[in-house]
């Protein structure tokens, strides 16, 4: 699982060598508590993912905390209307860092089929999103796939000075990136 360094097999038993980052990542990803932010149809599939057949408890995630203060992961499941958007932002702000978010479903990722006055065209207008999960609604297995990808991301997250370095690099890359209208695709 990427935690140990392989040196332990050569030494007398009882040792485990790892890095702080890997240990913290391991702890964080294996008991990630989701906040209940089920809005519409995707919420039902999220509940089905937490129920008996597609069990989220095997990943330590069956406790959907109602209070955002106790939650790590916000799965925005469903269409966010313009009336709900400030509430969404408030709940996200109330979550304590470290926090992650998954935009579950087409409506949360991009507004889905509802290109109208009432729906926020993607919750990334309102909160920062780590994983976008398409589907209408995504099957529980798709949701688990998204969660596992997020687990990988969390397990590999850097801390401390390394984290600052990564943030600076990502920002520099984004600022220097080629704008979409200049991209030429494979024919360039």
């Amino acid at each position, binding site marked *: 699982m990427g935690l140990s360094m392989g040196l332990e097999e050569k030494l007398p038993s009882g040792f485990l060598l790892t890095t702080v980052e890997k240990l913290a990542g391991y702890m964080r990803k294996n008991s990630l508590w989701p906040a*209940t932010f089920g809005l519409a149809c995707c919420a039902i599939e999220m509940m089905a993912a937490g*129920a*008996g*057949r597609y069990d989220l408890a095997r990943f330590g995630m069956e406790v959907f905390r109602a209070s955002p203060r106790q939650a790590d992961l916000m799965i925005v499941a469903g269409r966010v209307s313009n*009336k709900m958007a400030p*509430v969404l932002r*408030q709940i996200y702000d109330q979550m304590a860092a470290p926090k992650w978010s998954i935009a579950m479903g087409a409506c949360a990722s991009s507004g889905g089929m*509802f290109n109208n006055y009432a729906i926020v065209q993607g919750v990334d207008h309102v909160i920062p999103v780590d994983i976008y999960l398409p589907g*209408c609604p995504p099957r529980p297995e798709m949701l688990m796939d998204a969660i596992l990808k997020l687990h990988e991301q969390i397990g590999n997250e850097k801390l401390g000075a390394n984290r600052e370095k990564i943030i600076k690099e990502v920002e520099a890359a984004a600022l220097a990136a080629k704008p979409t209208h200049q991209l030429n695709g494979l024919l360039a």
Partner: protein
Amino acid sequence: MTTFTDPYASSQETTEGRVYSVTGGDWDSLVTEIGATKEERVVVNMGPQHPSTHGVLRLILELEGETITETRCGIGYLHTGIEKNTEYRNWTQGVTFVTRMDYLSPIFNETAYCLGVEKLLGITNDVTERATVIRVMMMEFNRISSHMVALGTGALELGALSPMIFAFREREKVLDIFELVSGLRMNMAYVRPGGVAQDLPAGALSKIKQTVKDLRHNFKDNEKLLVGNSIWIKRTQGIGYLDLAGCTTLGITGPVLRSTGLAWDLRKAQPYCGYEDYQFDIPTTDTCDVYGRFLIRMQELEQSLRIIEQCVAKLEKLEGQPVMVADKKIAWPSQLSVGADGMGNSLNHIREIMGESMEALIHHFKLVTEGFRVPAGQVYTAIESPRGELGVNLVSDGGTRPYRVHFRDPSFNNLQSTAAMCEGGQVADVIAAVASIDPVMGGVDR
């Protein structure tokens, strides 16, 4: 106590007095602060994000101690503008929009819409019997899956955790059937104007028979857990009282109306889709409370299984019948099926429209790009969804797109009764009462 420094928890002066936002901290300090103002009433906001409010429902409660003096519902947090969006799509695409309104009973939304479109088209009698029986079967399965969510989440909100797991286990069996027949677990867009999108696959009927047997056996688990349970009875008997007069003036239908003793079910009173040919009962109780509605929902599950068995028997006799009206001008845009050429047309037809007839080419072009036309008029169709009367007001101007689609969703009316049910009771009973109404906010807000 962070009533002044937290950006979300500041207190403000309003026309109604001082409003506090509490987001954590010591309850005592809040109480002493309120005590200093000599206000007896406290307005509590059970905001749109709350584990026990069945979706994004905002309940504004005015409390005096533990008793509720006034309660209001704030809705609209899931308003999606579906009704306006349908005006910009053609009639078949309307099905995919409409199915996402009341997302726990998608087949009912679709069927109500399609029955309305068929009424406007005048083809109600041309819909084949096989299609009608398939619609009835899918509707009854949907009733079972919707009641499972209602029972499961209702029990969960009152603290019973196991019924939720059992209910979702049964629901998964029903979703397997949905996936087998239509391809999707939820929001299937399976019922189309004129029939259904595709026929049952091979082996579906035997799988359905097996599922019915399993469900009938497993419903007893939940019954044993809750029906005679003294804690459940204490929390649900006498709670959320709404008698017949209240129901009729508020326009409430469904299990809430049937818990007052009136056996009003549109499947028996104003039958549609051939419901007059099926044998089933209408469960009623006359206690007008949460426990009565819970019992009604449990008994409706068994009645739905009865109807499904009769549907399966009929379908075995109707093997080979088409599942869409014969008129291809309506059938093809409705089914949008992929044919031999990858686009839904037979090669003979392509030869005809490309080589022989200009008019045929024009017709084909208009049909593919715009869909079928519906003659002008206005229609109201109502069916019995798990929550009550689901009505559709359709207005057509003779074109290829709806002019106005309005859904009279049962949860919208039923939720209006929270004030009548909860005022004078205790805070904890609000949860039970709202759970017994079983509102689905997608239908309330559309």
